[in-house]
């Protein structure tokens, strides 16, 4: 085949208006199979809105979002999740009154075909637990499996959120500012965790402020501002783009070499 492979996610000229405010303005982008796509932009650029549009929390005002062969821009949130898209939140949202194990079990596939199947027989299925434990071990939380999620330390809570997201066996994983509120040490551990996770999903979209994290992990970057795409390409290309450096870092192009550890 000479045609390029179908992207995992194809966003085609979407817009989102809140009242009179245009948060996303005619934005198009592809997420390709196997990549980690970094999305950067100043506060209020529309990064989180974009995530919310993909997961179905918001509805697009115009344009389409296609996931593989399905158009998902009109589907409900759980339907989108069941197709294989999930995300973690900027502010960790766990099931706080449930144990670590139960948090992961909730996300486990096989969402009860019928209400009766969910009521009988599948209470504490050994296979479900083994599967869930695998994701918990994968994120290094096996010793905390029975602990209440609400009592976890911040780094562990974030790890659990990722484990829960992976347990749904998604094909596309969206991470909304996973390093928010983390110190350098925690961020370094997080980078390892995300790197390990990429083999389990087809693609990852990473929205982040932390430049270390995004430079370390992204294969490709898209910079947005005022809901529009400002720059796109490899990390180096985006960092070299004068529009990006001016809008995001407030620097002239030449200054960046001093700031960027990889520059």
């Amino acid at each position, binding site marked *: 085949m000479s045609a390029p492979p179908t992207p995992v996610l194809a966003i085609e000229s979407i817009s989102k208006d809140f009242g009179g405010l245009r948060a996303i303005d005619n934005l198009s982008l592809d997420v390709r199979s196997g990549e980690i796509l970094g999305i950067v932009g100043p506060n209020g650029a529309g990064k989180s809105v974009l995530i919310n549009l993909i*997961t179905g*929390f918001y509805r697009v005002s115009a344009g389409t979002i296609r996931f593989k062969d399905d158009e998902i821009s009109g589907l*409900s*949130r*759980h339907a989108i*999740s*069941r197709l294989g898209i*999930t*995300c973690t*939140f900027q502010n960790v*949202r*766990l*099931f*706080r*009154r*449930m144990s670590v194990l*139960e948090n992961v*079990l*909730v*996300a486990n*596939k096989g*969402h*009860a075909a019928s*209400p009766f199947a*969910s*009521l*009988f027989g*599948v*209470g*504490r299925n050994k296979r479900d637990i083994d599967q869930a434990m695998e994701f918990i071990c994968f994120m290094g939380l096996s010793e905390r499996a029975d602990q209440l999620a609400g009592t976890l330390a911040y780094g562990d809570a974030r790890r659990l959120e990722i484990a*829960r*997201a992976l347990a*749904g066996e998604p094909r596309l994983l969206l991470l909304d500012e996973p390093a928010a509120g983390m110190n350098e040490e925690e961020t370094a551990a997080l980078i390892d965790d995300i790197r390990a996770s990429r083999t389990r999903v087809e693609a990852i979209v990473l929205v982040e402020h932390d430049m270390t994290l995004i430079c370390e992990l992204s294969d490709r970057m898209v910079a947005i501002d005022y809901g529009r795409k400002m720059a796109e390409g490899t990390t180096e290309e985006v960092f070299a783009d004068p529009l990006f450096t001016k809008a995001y870092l407030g620097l002239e192009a030449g200054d960046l070499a001093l700031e960027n550890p990889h520059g």
Partner: protein
Amino acid sequence: MFVDQLINGLVSGGLYALIEIGYTLVFGVLEKLNFADGEIFMFGGYADVIALSLGGDLTAAVLLTIAVSTLLALVVEFVSFRKFRSADAQITAALSSLLVGLILIELTHNIFSSEPRSLGLPQEVYSAGVNILGVQIAWIKLVILGAALVLMVGLSFVLERTRLGRNIRAVSDSPESAALSGINVQRVTQQVFVIASILAGIGGLLVACKSGVAVAEVGLTFGLKALAVMAIGGMGDLRGAVVA
């Protein structure tokens, strides 16, 4: 008669617990108060009247109660709660369910008249009983106690040990995360309403059996008291409801 009083206390405690769990379940999951629960409770009593007057027995009454409660739960959820889901609309939703409750009472008045309706249960139901520690205890009280216990233990089993229960707790903790994990939040919400409603309906049925009459206003008195109990037992905490 200490033992006698103890049993009476346990019986009415069990009845309050049933309706109470309804409030708590809905409040815990949705952070909304469903005032119509008391009227579903009242309908349980009238389901009893209807079933018995049509020549059915208590089993028929229970089945009818479950059917009516399920239907009412879905109606109340649709009318009063689905449109008012945002946190700002909490009071609107609560008032709206109160209104649905009042409509149900008026409806009952029109159909059955406002006077208490006798179930016409034979006298033996109340007199016959078993002798424990020298105290005569009517079967009906034991049945109520047993039913309340079974339903409460059953509910806690469902909540703690089944996928349905886990989904309910997940929605209660974080609806956003639940939806992202592939849970149909809308469906779980309906299931919560139905469970709460069936428990209330059965509670109402048992109260009607105990007193021998169905009364249209029973939902108001019982419902308000149960609300007070919930405030003491802890808003939204299921264990509190049972202990209280």
